[in-house]
């Protein structure tokens, strides 16, 4: 190319402006052609895409972890439930939609609107749940009329299911929607509004294990909100599987044994502290809470005078009555204030100062030694012994046997009970301790309070020769794929350091309670297994000036609410103990006749199943579903 060629560089200025304008027009034309291509030639295709391509991330709720019994039999799991939700951005007329929906769902218009508004801070693409657990017929009705219900979605969500309804309800507790206040707490930092969390019981205390990890799906929905295509799915991870120490069939048997009676029962494996059954009656169905309980249902539960929401097995504090006599007797032997064969003459009463304390048997038991005192529950024997023993030594033995403390079970409101002593009374009432109080404490009345769990622990400790095991409820926790995360092994809290000879006298006395013709608990005797027990009666209202064991009072005259509680503690087999039970029947009157039969049913069931011949077999993570 010639260096000084006078060619296009020489364009006159005018031409350059023309070129510039032409270039501008050219580029704009390119844009115009492209627009024409998009908006005319391919417009149908894009219009279709615009109709169809509404992509949304939708969270998939994770199923909570299932709860199994010790053998991997199912106790609590999840079932699929239909939830009716609304995708707001697809809704044109909210009022009209709610009116239609209220008809189909047979719900209150204002309630639906309230639920809608409650979740108005959800992102637009996130459906708002309006009604949970809708039945299949309603779902079909809604699907048929989906044209009129633009924006309404029907989602399948896992719903907490308690196939055995009221059984062990107090252990499982209940779940409920997370509150705004809870959402602000640190431990719920990764929760969202609308999530369900454990509110009580194991559901609450094992929340970090039970909660799964929510999944997420990216879906394409069309104008009507109908799902078209699913892009990616991040499946939810279910929560961990919990294996309890409970024996499902034993639990069910124990629940059933109560019938309509209120009360509580605890069954322990004496050799490791496993809680095999824990019953509190009356109970409630935790499923009521699975998607929000109605105010009406709640009021019914709260106002029931038998307190169905209370876990009586751990939070019911009752005077132990005569079941406390083992404590007094063991303390007396331990401290050497009496020998097993020392005779005390029961004439039906003991007088301390100017007060007279009656034996439940007005005529008296006559000459009574330790064994007879236990067998026939002679109050006078214990009154006399307690006067030699004093409250401090008696209460020390009570604590030694596991009373007066809590065991930190993963449950709510476990109560410590009360084992009184002089210091306690001074702090509490600023008053000195009186001898009369020692006398009634000796037979488990007065200030003494125990929970059924503590009584079971006490019985178990006597049965196994003095080892206080930590009672526990959780056997192990597994990842959903079966990997074991946590396993509980027996934990000895302390050795009661009891003289085995002393213990033998007590145990013989307890055996005679059931197996002697004059025993107070002879109605609980089994054919093949020797049961050792102690009956008790706990005063609800002081009927007379002095404690009574009830037998000679006309029960018909006493209003139900004023009747005494019946108690029964037992273990079996006597020679080589396996399980211990503690039972209270509220207002059941007599330990032997009201609570004893429940224990009998528990023992019968336990020894009729394979547990009688061998220790429970390990069943790793298998369920029956």
């Amino acid at each position, binding site marked *: *190319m010639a260096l000084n060629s006078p060619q296009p560089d020489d364009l006159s200025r005018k031409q350059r402006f023309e070129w510039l304008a032409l270039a501008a027009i050219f580029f704009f034309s390119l844009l115009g052609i492209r627009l024409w291509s998009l908006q005319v030639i391919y417009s149908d295709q894009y219009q279709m895409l615009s109709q169809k391509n509404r992509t949304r991330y939708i969270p998939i709720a994770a199923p909570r972890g299932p709860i199994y019994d010790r053998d991997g039999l199912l106790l609590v799991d999840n079932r699929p439930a239909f939830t009716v939700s609304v995708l707001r951005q697809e809704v044109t007329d909210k009022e009209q939609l709610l009116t239609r929906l209220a008809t189909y769902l047979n719900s209150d218009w204002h309630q639906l609107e309230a639920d809608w508004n409650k979740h108005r801070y959800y992102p637009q693409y996130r459906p708002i749940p309006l009604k949970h657990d809708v039945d299949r017929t309603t779902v079909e009705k809604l699907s048929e009329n989906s044209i009129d219900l633009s924006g309404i979605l029907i989602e399948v969500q896992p719903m907490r299911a308690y196939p055995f309804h009221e059984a062990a309800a107090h252990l499982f507790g209940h779940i409920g929607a997370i509150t705004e206040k809870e959402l602000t707490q640190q431990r719920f930092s990764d929760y969202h509004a609308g999530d369900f969390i454990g509110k009580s019981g194991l559901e609450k205390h094992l929340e970090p294990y039970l909660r799964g990890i929510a999944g997420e799906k990216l879906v394409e929905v069309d104008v009507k909100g109908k799902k078209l295509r699913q892009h990616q799915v991040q499946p939810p991870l279910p929560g961990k599987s919990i294996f309890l120490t409970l024996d499902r069939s034993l639990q069910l048997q124990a629940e059933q044994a109560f019938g309509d009676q209120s009360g509580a029962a605890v069954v322990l494996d004496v050799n490791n502290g496993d809680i095999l059954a824990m019953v509190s009656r009356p109970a409630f169905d935790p499923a009521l809470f699975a998607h929000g309980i109605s105010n009406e249902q709640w009021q019914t539960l709260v106002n029931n005078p038998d307190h169905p929401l209370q876990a009586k097995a751990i939070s019911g504090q009752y005077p132990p009555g005569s079941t406390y006599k083992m404590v007094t007797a063991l303390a007396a032997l331990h401290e050497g204030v009496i020998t097993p064969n020392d005779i005390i003459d029961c004439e039906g009463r003991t007088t301390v100062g100017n007060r007279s304390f009656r034996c439940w048997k007005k005529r008296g038991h006559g000459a009574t030694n330790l064994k007879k005192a236990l067998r026939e529950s002679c109050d006078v024997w214990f009154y006399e012994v307690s006067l030699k023993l004093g409250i401090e030594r008696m209460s020390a033995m009570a604590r030694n046997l596991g009373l007066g403390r809590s065991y930190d079970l993963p449950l709510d409101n476990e109560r410590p009970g009360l084992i009184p002593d002089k210091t306690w009374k001074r702090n509490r009432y600023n008053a000195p301790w009186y001898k009369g109080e020692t006398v009634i404490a000796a037979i488990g009345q007065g200030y003494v309070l125990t929970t059924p769990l503590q009584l079971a622990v006490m019985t178990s400790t006597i049965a196994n020769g003095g080892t206080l095991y930590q009672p526990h409820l959780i056997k192990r926790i597994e990842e959903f794929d079966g990997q074991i995360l946590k396993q509980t092994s027996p934990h000895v809290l302390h050795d009661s350091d009891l003289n085995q000879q002393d213990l033998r006298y007590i145990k013989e006395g307890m055996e005679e309670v059931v197996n002697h013709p004059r025993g107070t608990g002879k109605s609980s005797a089994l054919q093949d297994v020797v049961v050792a027990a102690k009956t008790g009666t706990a005063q609800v209202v002081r009927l007379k000036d002095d404690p009574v064991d009830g037998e000679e009072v006309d029960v018909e005259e006493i209003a139900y609410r004023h009747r005494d509680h019946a108690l029964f503690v037992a273990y079996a087999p006597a020679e080589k103990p396996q399980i211990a039970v503690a039972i209270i029947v509220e207002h059941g009157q007599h330990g032997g006749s009201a609570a004893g039969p429940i224990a009998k049913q528990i023992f019968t069931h336990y020894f009729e199943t394979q547990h009688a011949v061998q220790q429970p077999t390990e069943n790793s993570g298998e369920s029956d579903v």
Partner: protein
Amino acid sequence: MFDRRLAGNFDWTLLALVLLAAAVGIANLYSSTSSWNLSGLPIYMKQTYWLAIGFSIAITLTILSYRHLEHMAAITYIGCVSLLASVLIFGKTSMGATRWIDLGFFNLQPSEVMKVVIIIALAAYFSQHESNEGYRLKELIAPGLLLSVPVILTMKQPDLGTAMLLLFIGTTMALFAGIRRYALTILALLSSCAMTGGWFLLHGYQKDRIRTFLNPERDPLGTGYHIIQSKIAVGSGGLWGKGFMQGTQSQLSFLPERHTDFAFSVFAEEWGLLGCILLLSLYLAIVLRGIYIARKADSSFGMYLAIGVTAMIFWHIIVNLGMVIGLLPVVGVPLPLFSYGGTSIVTTMIGCGLLLNISMRRFIF
């Protein structure tokens, strides 16, 4: 100083065209952000305020003759380049890029100011070194350097879109000034080599954008999402459009950045091809008016200045529209007078002010 005759020469045509485009833009913003529940001033009102500020600046600028700018070219250039350099050191980082200097009440984006400053600098250079036979290669070294320093600094931020625009504006001015054919050939060769080499200097996300532009389906939910959704919005608008505030793509939030870079997609969806053609005509009219003003300019500096400003507006339009209708990769260039953003509207209005300034002094020598 101020001559009363100037008022008589005021370019009402340009002003009308610009204000019309801005008004359509604000109406469009009203539609695209109507579903937002933001506290405070709505976006379209903010945009109106920005327009008013820009307009005031533009009108104020017309009082002083643009000719003073020629003497200020060197100092503004040096000042602005230093600002660009300081952004890299003290700037505010947002979304992986450092583009702003926090002035407290306002986030200044020096690369935007640079667009106007480079125009003044190049206009000054070309008007002072006129060549009737076109520039030789070595005569282009000086303007080349003037251009490449801010381009490189802007790319460093990294702001590929603005760097590209600076390059386009400079190249347009140089081409207009005239380049000898051999020099042009060599430059073309050099730039194609540079582009190949430049690929390796791009940031990962920039490469992604270009790859995705070439094949948007490669990553339909990631970087391709913008292009796909925008094309759907534009295409589904059809011939007549879905109607004002009726665009489903935009109203249902499928369109990202629908008030800024993708504002045109909202317009195209709601007004269809007819609306688009009218809007394009409006923009073309502004550009042609700019060229006309350059042609009628009373001085060489004024001519180059007008060419530069027109080129700036033009390339913004082409790159932005090319991007939203899938002809160019997504580079984040706003559509003048249409996309929400104070800096963009003020820069555009300053440009218009310069054009008005040049235009009204065309008969005064």
